[in-house]
Every structure is written in structure tokens, then in C-alpha cells.
């Protein structure tokens, strides 16, 4: 027992505690300085550039400073950087096999940052999920959906799949489908819709709104009413315009038909002959009831 205790004491005594303390201090100092520099950079860029650029530069500054301190700490701990780099080559293969997904996501993340298909603050649609980009990180992109859900999407998915950026350009076109009855005058309804767009303050004057006849539907003639709105007024524009269209067509007595089915007797489309047959018994019952 004494031998074990003595060996342990000798082993502990041989460790250069001062060097390890310096390693810890270097790492801690590196973390603090990197955080401070990153925040300073974010403050500097905050009012001058977009959130995306601010976050990107903040991260670059943080990792650059922290990596320098990590290398210094490793050197202090007695690891030679050249040996480490050699080991890293072997490690890369081993780690690469072990963490293919993570590596793929990290590389995809780099492509996303360079290609910039979207920025922090943009509204994007990925695989049917629509949300505001709140973070582009090493492995994944974080979205906040309109109903306030937090969605994490791996970077690799974003590289492989179709991404729709809904706030890339300042204006958007809205296409409303308006169905009118077959007996209505299409030209008149088109003029009514265009005058509605002219009066609306949400609808842009240029590019000009237009109305197309798109289909002879089962119960209506379908029109496409297209107009442009500022990108931040898409929901308001769609809702107010649909309400205005309904009110206008009601006021002008233009029928918006609901789907219905007509039954015809034959090719001549003659009306059914309806004959009223007096039912005496039924009449009696009815009288009794009365």
C-alpha cells in the first residue's frame, strides 16, 4: 500500500503543474478575448451591414483568435504542432469515416455561407416548411416558423433540396384566382378588378396589375388577378384584396358560383317534364294532420 502511495506521489510530483496551469490560463484567456473581439466586431458592423454579415464576421473573428490560443496552449502542454499536423492527416481519414454526416454538414455550411442563397432574417421555404432564418451555424440552419416553432434543418439538406427565398426581392406578385359564373361579362369583370387594384394602397402602380382568363372550370370561368405588393405586405395584400374582390363583385351583382352539378335529360337538353298527380289518400292524411 505504501509502495502504491509512494509511486502515485512520485508520478504526481513529476507532472509539470505550472505548464498545465498555463495551458488552462491560455485557453480561458483565448476564450475571453475571442468572445470580446467577436462582440466588438458585431457592434462595429451592427449598424453598417446586415445581420447575416455581422454574425458571419463575428464567428470568423471568434474562431480565428480561439484557434491561435489553442495552438499556443498545445505547444505549452508539450505537443509539437508538426507532429499534431501529421497525426491530423491520419485522424482526418479515421474521423471522416466516423463522422461523415457531420463533415458533410460542415462543408455544406461553408457553401451556404459563400453562395448566400439566403441571409439571416430572410423568409425561406424548405420542403414545405416556411420560416424566418434565425441562424446559419456549423451543422444546421435554424428557422422560426410563422406559428413560432423552432425548426432545425441540416446544412446538407439545404444544399441538396430546393430552397425558396421569399424575401430576396423587395416586391412580390400575388395571383388570386377569381371564379365567375358563365353568364357574366368577362371583360366587365376584368375592368372592375383592375379598377380595384388602382384604388388599393397596398397594390403597386408599377409593375402594372393584370387579369387573365385561365380556365373554363366545372362551375365557373376562372380568372387570374395578378398584382404586385411590397414583400413585407404579402399577407395583408392578399387578405385585403380578397375581401375587396368579394365586396366589389357582390356590389356589382357578379355571381361567384360555388361548385354545382347540372343534370341534362339528353342531347337536346330539354327540360324535364314535371306532372303533378293528385294523391287523394295522401290528401286525406294531410287533412287529418291539419
Amino acid at each position, binding site marked *: 500500500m505504501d509502495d502504491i502511495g509512494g509511486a502515485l506521489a512520485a508520478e504526481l510530483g513529476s507532472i509539470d503543474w505550472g505548464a498545465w496551469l498555463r495551458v488552462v490560463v491560455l485557453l480561458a484567456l483565448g476564450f475571453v478575448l475571442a468572445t470580446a473581439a467577436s462582440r466588438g466586431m458585431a457592434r462595429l458592423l451592427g449598424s453598417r451591414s446586415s445581420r447575416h454579415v455581422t454574425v458571419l464576421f463575428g464567428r470568423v473573428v471568434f474562431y480565428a483568435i480561439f484557434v491561435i490560443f489553442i495552438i499556443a496552449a498545445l505547444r505549452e502542454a508539450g505537443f509539437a504542432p508538426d507532429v499534431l499536423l501529421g497525426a491530423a492527416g491520419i485522424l482526418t481519414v479515421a474521423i471522416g469515416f466516423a463522422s461523415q454526416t457531420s463533415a458533410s454538414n460542415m462543408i455544406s455550411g461553408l457553401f451556404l455561407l459563400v453562395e448566400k442563397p439566403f441571409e439571416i432574417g430572410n423568409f425561406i421555404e424548405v420542403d414545405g416548411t416556411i420560416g424566418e432564418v434565425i441562424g446559419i451555424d456549423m451543422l444546421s440552419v435554424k428557422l422560426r416558423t410563422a406559428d413560432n416553432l423552432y425548426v432545425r434543418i441540416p446544412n446538407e439538406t439545404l444544399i441538396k433540396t430546393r430552397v425558396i427565398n421569399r424575401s430576396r*426581392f423587395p416586391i412580390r406578385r400575388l395571383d388570386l384566382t377569381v371564379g365567375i359564373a358563365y353568364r357574366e361579362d368577362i371583360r366587365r369583370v376584368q375592368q372592375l378588378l383592375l379598377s380595384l387594384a388602382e384604388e388599393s394602397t397596398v397594390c*403597386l402602380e408599377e409593375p402594372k396589375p393584370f387579369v387573365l382568363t385561365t380556365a373554363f372550370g366545372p362551375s365557373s370561368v376562372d380568372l387570374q388577378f395578378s398584382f404586385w405588393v411590397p414583400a413585407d405586405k404579402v399577407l395583408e395584400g392578399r387578405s385585403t384584396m380578397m375581401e375587396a374582390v368579394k365586396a366589389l363583385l357582390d356590389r356589382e351583382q357578379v355571381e361567384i358560383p360555388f361548385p354545382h352539378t347540372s343534370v341534362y335529360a339528353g342531347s337536346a337538353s330539354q327540360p324535364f317534364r314535371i306532372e303533378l298527380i293528385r294523391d287523394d289518400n295522401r290528401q286525406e292524411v294531410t287533412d287529418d294532420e291539419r
Partner: protein
Amino acid sequence: METVPNESGAWNHTYNLASGQTQKHELSETRFWVTLLDNEWQVRWERNAGETDRTEWRQQVSHVLPGSEVKQHRFIRPDEDGDLLFMPAMADRPTMIRPYQPLTIPAGRECTIYVATLVWLRILVGRTRTQLMELPLAEPSLTWVGRTTMDGELCYTAPTYARLVLDAVPKRPWRAISPVRICNRRQEPLLLERFSLPTPSLPLYRNERDQLWTPQVTVVCETEMAQASLRVARRLPAEAGECEKLAEARSWHDRGVLTKALDRIFG
């Protein structure tokens, strides 16, 4: 309590309200009420797009408030003072001027057209002239100016008769008159269908007849319309008369100097 009868409203004129009083204003298609209470200011406003033929700014002090359906905003009183002041401001985006009928300027000729653009109203209160809010005096329409739907900017739109005679321009308290001199130095006639007036770069003045004026804007078209340049004069035009400055330009760039080629002047 007695009601002060209808009087004309005025820019940069100090009104004083006692606690409990409400001042009602009617100008353009906007009606608004400013109320002073012991600890707060209240502003209510509504718009009626049908009432555009009003030519005067009417105001009245009373203790009557509008119905609850009118939009209302409350503000903490910045100080004990009951002073109330209204200042105009130019639009916060460029304004697209579009003549009802296109105007052609022959080669080598120039003309000055007078356009009247909508102003924004700023409500300032108290000794410190603290701004409570700012609102356009009519609902402005927006339009897109640019070569494509990808490259350009949003502007307010102002259909105009592009009057060449100043006397024909209606003078209303909610419109600022800007003389625009257009020089066509090309070899071909210039068809003026629309152009973008840099309203945020224009300061605002009032003359002795209570009309709002901005300095003259000169647009020079040398080679092609996309290369037109624009200059904002440092002084007011002589026809404006004696003026006092009411508002600085919202943005200072492009003022007083020949700007670089602006490819969005003529859309």
C-alpha cells in the same frame, strides 16, 4: 366648457391646450384629434379617401372626443407644458411623378414643371418640442422604379398634370410645391412619361402666403435617359418669395451637388 370656433390651422404655430381639452384638425383626407390629459397626450386619427376636395386646414378646440372606432395612440407627457406644434416633412421615399398625359421636350430644349407632393405631419409637444408621431396626410400609393423587378426601389407615386404655369398649381396646406427643370441636351426629343423626384433629399420652406416650397430640382439628360443627372438647388426659386425653413431634408446626400448618373430618374 366653451368650444373655440373653427379656425385655420397652421404649420409651425404654437397652440396651447389645457388639461382635458381636445384639438380637432381637418386637412386633406385626414381628421385627427390631439388631447391633453394630466399625465398623457392622446392622438386619434382617421382617413376618408372621399374627402379630397377640402382646400383649407380647419381646427377647433373642444372637449369632444370621437367614437372609439377611431385609431388612438397614447403618449406620456414629456413635461408639464401644454404647447402643441405641427411641422411638415417631405416624404420618406422618392416620389414618382407621372404626368396624366406624357410630355415631349424637343431636342436641346428645357422646361420647368411644377409638381405638388404630399407632406407628412409631425406632432411636437411640450417645452422640449418632443415628437409624438408622424403621419402622411393622405394614404400614399406605392410604385416600383427600376429596370427589372429585381433591381430598383419602392417609391411613392404622384399622378400630376405636370403644369408648366405656377398659377395653375393648386395651393393646399398639405402639398409642397417643387419646381423641376428638365433639360434635354440630346439630339432626340425626350418623352417624359414619369420621373423620380428625390423627396427625402429636399428641405421644406414656407412662404408668406403659407405655401410650402422646396428648392428647384434640375434634371439634365445628356445622352440617354438612363444616364440623366440630378441637382438640388441650394436656394429657393424667386417665385416662392420670402420663405422660412420648416424642415431639413431627411437625407443629406445628393443635395446641392451634381450627382452621379442615376439610372432610376426616368424609371
